[in-house]
């Protein structure tokens, strides 16, 4: 059986890639995709923990279902806000968010 650490390294790496993407990418679409990557990285960790847990096995999988549904809702809201932004600005660039400063 693959040791737990391997899954956690994969999860941590995906989470870091996602976090880097959220901070560095400019297109809102890419940022939303990177957010998804972060959520799914956590899902991998949760399933792995659930599989290796002595007590409370299965709780992690249940948690993952909630996270999946919420991540879908999150994308829907994010894209809706993106569309509203595009209608006003004709651009989907995070760097365009400079109306307010202070």
């Amino acid at each position, binding site marked *: 059986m693959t040791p737990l650490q391997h899954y*956690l390294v994969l999860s941590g790496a995906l*989470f870091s890639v*996602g*976090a880097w993407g*959220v901070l560095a990418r400019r297109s*809102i679409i890419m*940022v939303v995709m990177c*957010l998804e990557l*972060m*959520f799914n*990285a*956590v899902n991998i*960790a*949760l399933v*792995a*923990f659930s599989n290796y*847990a*002595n*007590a*409370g*096995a299965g*709780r*992690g999988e*249940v*948690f993952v279902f*909630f*996270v999946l549904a*919420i991540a879908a*809702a*999150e994308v829907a*809201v*994010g894209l*809706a*806000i*993106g569309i*509203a*932004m595009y209608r*006003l*600005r004709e651009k989907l660039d*995070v760097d365009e*968010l400079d*109306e*307010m400063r*202070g």
Partner: protein
Amino acid sequence: MQHDVVAIVPELMLVAAALVLLLIDPFLPAKGRRGLSWLGIMACLPAAASVWLARSQQFSTFSHGIALDGFAVFFKILLLAVAALAMLLSEKHLARNGRLLGDYYALVLLATVGMMVMASAIDLATFFVGLELMALSSYLLAGFFRHQLRSIEASLKYFLTGSFASAILLFGMALLYGLTGSTNYQQISIAIGSGSLDGHVIVIAVVLLLGGFAFKVAAAPFHGWAPDVYQGAPTPAAAFLSVGPKIAAFAAIIKFFTIMLGSEQARWVPLMIVVAIATMLIGATMALLQHDLKRMLAFSSIAHVGYLLLALIAAGQSHSNFGSSAILFYLAAYAAMNMGAFGVLVFLANSARFNDSLDEMAGLARRFPGAAGVMAVLMFSLAGIPPTAGFLAKFYLFASVVDAGYAWLAVIGVLFSVVSAFYYLRVIVYMYMREPEPEVAAVMEPGGGRSWDLSLGLGLATAVVIVLGVLPAPVLNAAQDAVAKILGS
């Protein structure tokens, strides 16, 4: 603890009202939407009543995922009051901006349901669902004026930072689950208390949780979104967003840090001290530099979060309930005074061509004596001057910090609160002692002006601020009682 669906009856009532609002809204003519807010407000009353009736017992449901205990009762009633006040403040402002829709009230109600779930969750999964329900509704509320670039920009910034924070928080929760093998708060608390877990992983989990929560309550160094969001969001929505999510997040923070990680306080208290001092420093100094009142209130609310984190340190350090009950009382006072202050801005934006700038407050006392008087009371309270709620809240809070053996932290907190008095009192000086510049004088528009709902909301907020300042005993006792009953202990 009884296992019964009674535990989520108040949430079900709000969800039902939100669905009714969404369903009937398209069939109403534009004028028929007047008074729709009362449907939402009226849903909060039976919900609060059902919470109140259940106060002496404890109920849980969803296989111990959510519990209506004494702690949840305090927070639910507070959150319902905040939601009702937010809806009272909104109608006229929405109508003037051409966005008087039932959706707004439905979003406020759904966000409130999310907050109530956060306050009463006793399982990581239900907590996360509540958190996201609150967060997603909040992003949409911030962008509700979707034809205004500022509102959409606020919404997008809130979405990007908020979702990032949710993911970080989620990773922290996954680590807690991996460490302890359970998602139940009580079992996690027992497992961590046993002291047999890997200390390094606990530190990583603490850092992730602290980072995620710092984003959610706008604590340094993750406070950057708050001024932009409050400035860009519709003002009544900003009133709600500056209070509701913070109350819910602090309910969760108390459970996470003083209950679950209570035995590991040596690991998180030093970190929290740094975060609290940095938060107060940034909040108090940046608020001095602001000329936009909404941004000033945003930075001032960051400073208030800093004080609340001080009480959290006290709650983690000493084994008395003093720190936690000080947080609860402070949240109640903060809710009334902060929403009231935003409410005055809503009133001014409704009755004049008002752009939320400090210069426009000059000479306000002559043109709008009522609004100026209310604003003066609220500013005194935010500054912490007796006999207002803000003074007593700060007094209890700093007393709890001293009681926990952190007298030096309390001194720092008091110093920052002296600095903060400057920018609150500056508003009063502008209103009462300055003549307005002719070109910036806010002009009364015909047809603008009074809204019965808004005046009622402002009156209630001011009354609460004064009553809490003179007669704090009932709320303070309720707060102490609530903390004593946390997690059925």
